[in-house]
């Protein structure tokens, strides 16, 4: 890096050119190795169905807000002398705590809330710091798990489909035989999967009313039913579509849709984000013998 001290631009460009030229000569072998070859051979199909195995991730900002949104300074605000300013608990994050813009993932860019539910979303958003289950590292629910800003791994065999999420170590065993209604409500719901041609369709029911759709306070009740459609678009992409139904929250079903990308680097792996430990100070810090000042 010493070569890049502030000097004449032409000299920098010359240095960069030389560096690249040298690198190209040295690294010819690297360029000739196709990245596809360096990842283990991956069968296109499993028991006649598209191979869903892999580490997948959404590339969007839907976890901030599933609807379209422009960038803003923070997730939580307080009144300011001219315009609202970041709330005290998030102020120190500066640009790191700002919200990136997004096109949204909801079909028609509108959620058909019933009036009471629309009100609740606004309250949720205003009280985001106290209410978002993600802040307390609670399980993300479905579909939110699929667009958290962390990957998940699908384990697909001829007998099972299982999803392990990096965020909070959430898991879903996709049942391939419908056991009937879920005997108990849960955060991640009960998933039952079946193939429709090359699309894997997962019906998720048996939710509790605790999870959210995003950090913008979008919510549901325990009547939520999510029908997910995973449709491969080549070996490294899945189109994900979810139909959301909840007659106590929404006036009609609505849809979200976004691509999932497969991590193709040869050393791709699911890491661990067991955040329970990370929120202990937030949740229990006041109960210490000597709270941290």
């Amino acid at each position, binding site marked *: 890096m010493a070569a890049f001290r502030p000097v004449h631009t032409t000299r920098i460009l010359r240095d960069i050119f030389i560096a690249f030229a040298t690198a190209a000569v040295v690294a010819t072998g690297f360029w000739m190795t196709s990245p596809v070859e360096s990842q*283990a051979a991956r*069968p296109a199909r*499993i*028991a006649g169905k598209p191979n869903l*195995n892999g580490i997948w991730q959404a590339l969007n900002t839907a976890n901030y807000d599933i609807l379209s949104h422009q960038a803003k300074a923070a997730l939580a605000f307080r009144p300011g002398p001219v315009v609202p300013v970041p709330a005290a608990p998030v102020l120190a994050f500066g640009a790191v705590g700002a919200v990136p813009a997004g096109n949204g993932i909801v079909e028609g860019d509108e959620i058909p809330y019933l009036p009471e539910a629309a009100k609740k979303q606004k309250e949720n958003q205003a009280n985001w710091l106290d209410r978002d289950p993600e802040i307390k*590292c*609670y*399980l993300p629910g479905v579909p939110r798990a699929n667009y958290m800003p962390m990957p998940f*791994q699908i*384990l*697909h*065999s*001829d*007998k*099972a489909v*299982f999803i*392990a999420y990096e965020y909070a*170590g*959430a*898991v879903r*065993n996709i*049942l391939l035989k419908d*056991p009937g209604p879920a*005997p*108990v409500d*849960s*955060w*991640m719901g009960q998933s039952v999967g079946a193939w429709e041609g090359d699309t894997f369709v997962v019906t998720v029911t048996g939710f509790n009313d*605790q999870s959210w759709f995003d950090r913008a306070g979008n919510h549901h009740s325990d009547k939520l039913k999510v029908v997910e459609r995973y449709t491969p678009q080549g070996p490294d992409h899945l189109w994900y579509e979810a139909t959301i139904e909840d007659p106590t929250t929404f006036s009609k079903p609505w849809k979200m849709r976004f691509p999932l990308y497969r991590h193709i680097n040869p*050393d791709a*792996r*699911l*890491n*661990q984000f*067991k955040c*329970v*430990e990370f929120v*202990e100070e937030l*949740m*229990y810090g006041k*109960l*210490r*013998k*000597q709270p941290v000042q």
Partner: protein
Amino acid sequence: MRNILVGLAIASVAATSLAAQAPKTIAKPAALRTSDGKPDLQGVWTNATITPLERPQNIKDLVLTEEAAARMEKAVTDRRDRLNEPSDPNRTAPPQGGDGSTGAAGNVGGYNNFWLDPGERVAIVDGQRRSSLIIDPPDGRIPALTQEARTRQQARAKLAMGRGQYDHPEYRPLAERCLLSFGPTTPLVPNYFYNNNLQIVQTPDHVMILMEMVHDARVVRIGGTHLPKHIRPWMGDSIGHWEGDTLVVDTTNFPPQQNFRGASENLHVVERFRRADDKTINYRFTVDDPTTFTAPFTGEIPFRAMEELIYEYACHEGNYALGNVLSGARNEEKRLGSKQ
């Protein structure tokens, strides 16, 4: 647990020679294979058993007679039936400080028997009814700790003496904090309490082992090398390979907070999964840590197929205990402080 020990004591008296219990060889039907020809380990399994990890001192042999095993199992089911009798609705609260009972969660009767599911059967491996899960060393017991480990334990105990166990959440057990199951996670030794259930999903590249508690999926990579030493996931870092029809899983990189019988950062666990028949996996584990144990030790556990599903164990989301334990301690301090 006390009754199990009584059962084992009776069993030891009745135990006869090993010769009568020759291991059975069980054929492996082709149907128990995956499409890529590997033995199929998939399904929902339980490792619950009444056979303890370590052999009780008064039992000599690894193998129990059929009669001895039946007596042990009867002692457990008799106790279960007795504890399942309806509670007296007119009973009074336990006296302050507890009633001296030895049930789960202390001597005020935290859980009654309805909630417990510790297993009711003796572990059977290759047709042998076992008195301990540990098969090596031959006495069925965890080898002595090294001098280094004893010194470490003494230092830990000294540190713990100088502080209140309820002062901070970090002083509470990992399970109470909902970070991990309260049983060992790697190796997959039963907790003798409840939820000893696991699910295995297998692809050519990965084998996923889900433990019901705390919805912990250990994803074993087939082939490859271990993570850099500074990356220490809960449950360790597992890589696997096939030796014939046995899946061998090698786990290192345990975090310092996760302790198995005094071993943590240097713990090395090798697990061997072998399909025994259509309802059983024979699971063998070897634990090694020269900084903690004077010798490695090996155990065997049958995993029995279950028809039931595993449901969500959302521990942290419903963890009222940790907050209540800490606030209880703060209230107690206030009460004692105001008395002085």
